[in-house]
Structures are given as C-alpha cells and as structure tokens.
C-alpha cells in the first residue's frame, strides 16, 4: 500500500501535565537574569505568595511541548478538509521571512522613519487587497474575521448615523450564515433579522423583500455561501438592499472560491472583510492569530478603522506612515492597542507576492476543481450531496441524513472514524440547517491522489457502518484519547490545574 492513510501504531507516549513534571527549585537557568536584582518596591504592592508555575528544566520544556505537538493533526501532517476554514498549505517562507530579526524587533511605536521596510509591505498589501476585492480602500487592523465583521457593521452604522439615519439598526443575516455574523450584529447594537434559504441554496428573494425596510442597516452575506454554492441572484439581492437604503456586507471567509474570478465590489458589496488566515494562507496556529482586513467602497472609506498606511513623497522617494484619527476624523476608531496582527499581515504579504497576479485566479480555479471532483466522486460512491443540482464552490456539503436513519451513522461517527484512517474530519453540523451535515473543503493545495484516498476512506467507513455500526461508533481508536465526555467537561468544570494539597 503506497497510500498515506493507514492508521498505525506509533512511538508516541502519553504526556502528563507540565505541572506534574515540576519539582521545587528546578529552573531553566539560562533563560532569566543570573541574579535577581533588587527591585526595592514597597511591600504593600507585592504579592505574598509565589504563583504556581511549573519548575522544570529546558529539556523538559522542549520534550513536553514537542511531544504535545505530535498529538495534533495539522495541515503539515494530515489532509484537513475542514469546511469554511480553508486549510491549505501555509508556505514556510511566509513564516521565516516574517520572523526576520529586523521585523521582530521593531517596536510598534517606533517612528515611521524606522519602519519603512515594514510599512512598504503593509502599503503594498493594502493595494493588492483592493485589487482582489474591487474595493476602494483597505484597513489591515482587524485581528480576525469576527473583528473584521465588527469593523464592517460599525462602519455601516457610522455611515447611516452620519447621514442622520442612526435609527437604521436592523441587520439581515441568512440562516446559513456563520455564527459570527449575528453575534457581530449584536455587538454593534443591531437587531438581527434572519433570512431563510431556499432548497436550491440561494437566498429567498421574496423573504428578503419583505425583510428590508426603513430600519434596514444592511445585510451580511457570504458568497459563495456557507452551503458551498454561489448566490446566483446577487445582483437582485444588492438592488433590493440598496433600494431600501441599506448596505451590503461581504463575509470574505469564502473568498478562496472566487479569487480572481469575480470581485465582491462588482457584485455590489459596500464592505468586505477578508480572512487572511484562510484565503491568504497565514497559519491557523491551533486557533489563531488571524487577520480580518476590511475593504470598503467609496462611501465607507471615511469610516475605516485606524490605523491605515498612507504613502507620500519625501525627497522624491515614497514615504509611508500611519494615518490616524487626525487623518480620518470619521473613523470608527482603533480596534487594537497598536495596528493589528502585523506579523500575520507580513505572512499574507509574502504569500500574495509569491502567488502573483496569475496565482490569484488559480487559487479559485483549483480549489473549485478539487471540490467539484471530490463531490462528484463521493456522489458516485453513494453519498448524498446537499445540493446535487448545483456547482460546488470551493466546498460542498454531504448529508448523512439517510445513513443516520438506516444504519445509525451520524456525521460525528464518520468524523471520528476518519481520524483513525489518517484524515482530519470535515466540518460537522454546520450549517445547522442541513441535517447530519459534513462541510468539506479540500483546498487547491491537495493532490488528486489524496482526494481519491479520502473517498476510499469515506466508502470504507460507510461499508463498515452497514456491517458493524458499533465498530464505527467506537472510533477513534488510534488517537491519544478516544471520544471525550463533553457533558462531564461542562458539568464538572475543571479549567485549571491546582496543586494537590500538601502532605
């Protein structure tokens, strides 16, 4: 067997907590000043205990976290077709170049004169993001998709307020939308109006017409939607919302699907956030950091969150500097202590420069090719696509509704069984409106052979479920732990290690 999907015993060993390796007085001596300096602070300000941190050697730390790392699935080790997450290859050069000492050591408040290298990258990144979205201005400061959404809706509100329409506080959100969309609307003090999805995956236009009104602030749309299909009536949606005086917000989490093929600006969107940690392949890091850069059309440009990089001429050479509240008096404000996730932005910059003009389009093309191929192959093997009549975008949905009913194979079962076969699971149970839903996003960086092996694994699990569902339900078996008790986790909260009582 030349595949890479045979679950196999390993040489890994269970890893205790770092606290359990601690011994009083042990230290990684090279890592702190050789002597404790006299701080001479008054006792009233001092703590009278010692915080319980591990006391371990440098080798213990290295060994502990190296071993822990080996307990993760990751893009670098496994196919990771997590829908809506764009788990594509994170080029290593993006990391090494963003971590050059000159970049790492620069203080955020260092004057622009001592940051022209960094700022040039940021300015050019802004320009490239404008180009790929068809927007007029970009701010890089939001630190993840959700903060980008916040910035977008806050700009929409600021726009209405500036026009004396502060009462516009209704945000329309399709029922299939990502949870951050409605949550963001609430954070911006808005009311959410949920929009139903039609059976073919498009938005219900009639419902939209009924939903808009004088209080409409705007709509938040993901296109292609989280159902993995392109909203064909986007023009009509845009016209309907604009006619009602609302603005259109584009959730750019799925930008990978259309990069270089269609510009959100052309579709009629007024504001967009991009997940640079998806489309532009900055790492997910086990949960973050990301970057949710926002782009806007002319109308919203005055409200962009600060800072933004501006370019001027000085001594006949370009000079870059931060634009602040003084340059953008109508800004919705700063959203972070400094300028956002600079190091993430550097990684995205390197990635985009390596893709180049042609590479942008190819991302969408091959992400879409992979998704449609995988969808077709799974359908041929008997799996049920949620939207069989539609083209897949960069992702698609398989529903196990039938399998759940006939043999009891749930999306969760299948997800866990995939782990034993060396594949990370797709996104499960999202979007919620599709029962026993698997949202599958292969991304453009995976080979056809990998997709074929994934199909083999899916088929094998489905077969196994027919003959021996209990075996499937006992998965995973090869992971460091097997199915975990989530109910116990939430009931008997154990959220931090505490030293056992002495004696």
């Amino acid at each position, binding site marked *: 067997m030349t595949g890479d999907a045979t679950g196999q015993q390993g040489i890994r060993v269970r890893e205790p907590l770092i606290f359990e390796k601690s011994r009083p007085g042990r230290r990684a001596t090279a890592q702190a000043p050789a002597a404790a300096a006299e701080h001479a602070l008054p006792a009233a300000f001092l703590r009278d205990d010692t*915080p319980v941190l*591990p006391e371990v050697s440098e080798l213990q730390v290295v060994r502990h976290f190296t071993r822990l790392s080996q307990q993760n699935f990751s893009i670098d080790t496994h196919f990771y077709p997590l829908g809506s997450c764009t788990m594509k290859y994170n080029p290593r050069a993006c990391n090494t170049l963003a971590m050059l000492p000159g970049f790492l050591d620069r203080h955020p408040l260092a004057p622009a004169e001592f940051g022209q290298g960094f700022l040039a990258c940021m300015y050019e990144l802004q320009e490239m993001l*404008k180009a790929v979205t068809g927007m007029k201005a970009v701010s890089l400061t939001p630190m*993840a998709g959700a903060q980008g959404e916040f910035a977008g809706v806050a700009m929409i509100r600021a726009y209405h307020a500036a026009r004396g329409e502060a009462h516009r506080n209704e945000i329309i959100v399709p029922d299939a939308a990502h949870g951050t969309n409605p949550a963001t609307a609430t954070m911006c003090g808005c009311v959410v109006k949920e929009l139903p999805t039609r059976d073919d995956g498009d938005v219900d236009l009639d419902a939209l017409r009924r939903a808009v009104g004088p209080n409409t602030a705007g709509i938040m749309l993901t296109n292609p939607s989280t159902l993995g299909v392109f909203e064909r009536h986007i023009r009509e949606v845009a016209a309907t919302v604009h006619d009602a005086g609302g603005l259109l917000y584009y959730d750019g989490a799925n930008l990978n699907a259309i990069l270089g093929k269609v510009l959100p600006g052309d579709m009629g969107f007024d504001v967009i956030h991009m997940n640079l940690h998806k489309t532009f392949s900055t790492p997910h890091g086990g949960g973050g950091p990301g970057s949710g850069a926002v782009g806007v059309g002319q109308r919203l440009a005055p409200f962009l969150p600060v800072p933004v990089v501006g370019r001027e001429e000085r001594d006949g050479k370009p000079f870059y500097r931060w634009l602040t509240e003084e340059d953008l008096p109508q800004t919705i404000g700063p959203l972070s202590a400094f300028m956002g996730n600079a190091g993430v932005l550097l990684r995205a910059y390197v990635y985009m420069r390596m893709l180049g003009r042609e590479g942008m389009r190819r991302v969408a093309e091959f992400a879409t090719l992979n998704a449609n191929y995988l969808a077709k192959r799974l359908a041929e093997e008997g799996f049920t696509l949620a939207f069989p009549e539609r083209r897949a975008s960069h992702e698609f949905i398989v529903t196990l509704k039938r399998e759940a009913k006939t043999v009891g194979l749930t999306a969760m079962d299948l997800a866990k069984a995939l782990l034993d076969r060396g594949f990370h699971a797709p996104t499960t149970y999202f979007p919620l409106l599709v029962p026993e839903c698997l949202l599958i996003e292969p991304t453009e960086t995976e080979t056809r052979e990998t997709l074929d092996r994934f199909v083999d694994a899916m088929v094998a699990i489905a077969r196994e479920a027919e003959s021996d569902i209990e075996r499937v339900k006992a998965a995973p078996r090869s992971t460091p732990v097997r199915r975990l008790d989530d109910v116990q986790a939430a009931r008997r909260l154990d959220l*931090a290690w505490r030293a056992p009582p002495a004696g």
Partner: protein
Amino acid sequence: MPFIPHTGDDVAAMLATIGVPDIDTLFDEIPRDLRVDGIPGVPEALSEMEIARLMHERAAQDAGMLSFLGAGAYAHHVPAVVWEIATRGEFYSAYTPYQAEASQGTLQTIYEYQSMMTALTGLDVSNASLYDGASALAEAALMAVRANRSVDSTRVLLAAGVNPRYRQVAQAIAGHQGLTFERLPLDAAHGVTDLDGLDEGGEPPVAVVVQQPSFFGTLEPMDALTDWAHRRGALVIAVVNPTSLAILKPPGAWGQKGADIACGEGQPLGIPLSSGGPYFGFMTCRQALVRQMPGRIVGRTTDVDGTPGYTLTLQAREQHIRRSKATSNICTNQGLMVTAATIYLSLVGAEGLARVASTSVARTRELAAMLTAVPGVRRRFDGPHFHEITLELDRPVAPVLSGLARAGILGGLDLSRTFPELGNALLVCATETKTEGDLRRYAEALAEAMRT
C-alpha cells in the same frame, strides 16, 4: 503554479470525472458579466528566492535602533525554544481544536496556559485568549455589564492611568452597546488615581477599570481602589502586565474581595514586538462569572476508556452555538501566541519571571537616575515605579527625540500630545534586555541632545 500540485493529466482526468470540458465551466453559476479576467493590480509572481531577498532588505532597513519604548509593548528576552517549538507544523498549521481527539496537543497546552494565567492573576478561571490587551478590556467591560446584575447601568469608570489607547478601543467596541467610559481623577504629583477626588455620587458605575502598573509606570493603591469600587456596587476590572505579577500583588488579592476580572496584554510573555502584533489578550475572572466570559475555554474530562483528556467546553457561550445571543462574536483568537506564552512561562517559571520583573524595575530605576542627572530632565511623578517612568523635560519633547534618533536611539514615547496636562512628558522604559552600557549610551546621547 506555486503550491498547486495538479498536473495536466490530473486536470484532464478530474474534469472528465466531473463531466465538464474545462475549469471555467465550473464557474458558470456566476453571472457572466460579473466575471473578471485577471487582477492587473497585483504584480507578477515572485519566486521564493526573490521575495526572500526583498524581505531581507526590508527587514534590514528597519533594524538597528536601541529602543527605550514601552507603553504597552515590552522588549524582553524571548528564549529560542519558544518559537522553535511554537512554529512546529503541528502547532502552526492546526485549526481551532474542534475535533478534540485530533487536537490534544493544542488543547492540553491551552489547559496549561489557563492554569498559569489563573495562578498569575490569582483568579479562578481563564479563557484561551482574546485578540490583544485593548480589545480584551472592551470585552471585559461588556462582560461586566452582563455579569453585574446588581447595578442597572452602562457607566464604566477608568482610572486615569489606564492606557489611553485601551480606552479608545473600549469605546470604539463597547460604545455600540451603550457603554460609556469616564476618567477618574489623577493625583498629578504621584501619577496615580486621586483617592480623595473619587466621586461618591452620580449614577452607580457598573464597572471600574484600574491598571497596574499604570500607563505612567506608577503603582496604584489597588486595595483602596478595589474596595471603593465594590462599595459602589461596581465590578472591578484589573488591567495588568503579566510580567509584573511575578512580584506584584495579583488582582485576585486586591482589597477585601479581589478584582472580579483581570485582563491585559500577553505580549511580554515571549512574544516578539513585531510592530504591534500578533500579541494576545488574556482574561481571567472569578468562578461565578465564567458563564459570561467571552472566548474559548478548555476543560479537562475523560474519554470512553476513562483516560483524561482535554476539550473545548462551555461552548454555549459562543457565537457558533448561541449566535446573536453569544457573549462575544470572537471566533479565531490568538492561539499560537498562547502556545508561545505557555512555553515561555514553563521556561522561566515563577523565579525566572520574578527576576525578569525585578531586573526591569532596577534597570528603569538606574536609567531614571542617569537621565535625571542631565540638566533639564526630571521625574514627573514621585513614588515607586515599575519598569517605566515618566520624565519631564524643560523643552518640547519631539525635537529631543529626533536628536536621540540621529544617535540611533529611540528614546521613549512623547506624552505631550496625549496628556498635555503633564507638560513636556516623556515615557521611558528599560527592561532586563538593557545593559549598563545601553543606559549610559542613552544618557550621553540625551545630554548631547539637550545641549543643542
């Protein structure tokens, strides 16, 4: 095709399987007139070799200054282990640990992190990170409003020593839900909250925000402030520097009952300065408030065999479950930075962190002594300082800083525009990374800059 593995044969075979003649057909649901042909605004692709050269040149361009800037981001020694391990592919390229069985490495790390942060702050529970210190304060304020049922108010009071940018960010974020942020009076001699000037009337505040060490580097009387705030029915939100907690009294021990929520900037814990990010915001609180916490939380549980393991828990607080009723919209957080901070704290331990803290305090004290020996330079505030100190010059700060910059020194932060009431104020910082020679170099350059 960088990063795309498809051969011509692959494409042909895949199109045949799908049953379309070409890739373009796969986009036929997009209205034709919306489709674009290429993105002229993006330059031609560079090979890795080419971009590497460009980035090396740009990074070199920004290097080489001796910096005494602090003001919320601190130059500390970052052990080599931290990033050699944190950037291992298994940590670097994993997603949020939704599939717990496939993510025990990340989950156990977060559990260890939560344990460390609660130990440092003296509180019960910690989340798995927020974006940064400033946005963490915004979240803390929103959380306090949800949690404080005893006061029906959205009035938040901030000590004058809270980082002014944090206040702006809190306003920008939490203002949308009606929260207002007001400043408490400053004791202009000591650079701490004027306890006598505290207003006992007006609408009762829902929360009081205090920062230790203060933005000016001074140490606030936290016991008194905490008790006063609690007396007024407010929750106490502590903005703290995690390094300082190795030696300073933790929020959980302030006053009679302790602060209710602690938050702040995690950057000092092994995160490079990197022009401002990525850093991470941390947040801890009392057990009773855990269900109002924003962000992810990891819990320990057992698997079907009884083996202990780790999983995301209390997810009903979060946007992917509760949508518009969630405690926050946060989804992606700053995970990898937390991995780095956990490694950092494991390496330095309590003793190492205390040495970092006390050495930084001592260095700043030495620096202040050298700088105030320069004619025209004096301390702005009396009393103890942590690892930053506010100086006052006898002339405008900006030209002096320019003079220092010409000598290769970033001399600190000019406060005169943000805090005109403080005069020609300059905020300087020296951590354990600065040698005696560095301090002397600064003092000599300052003497020179003040001479001209």
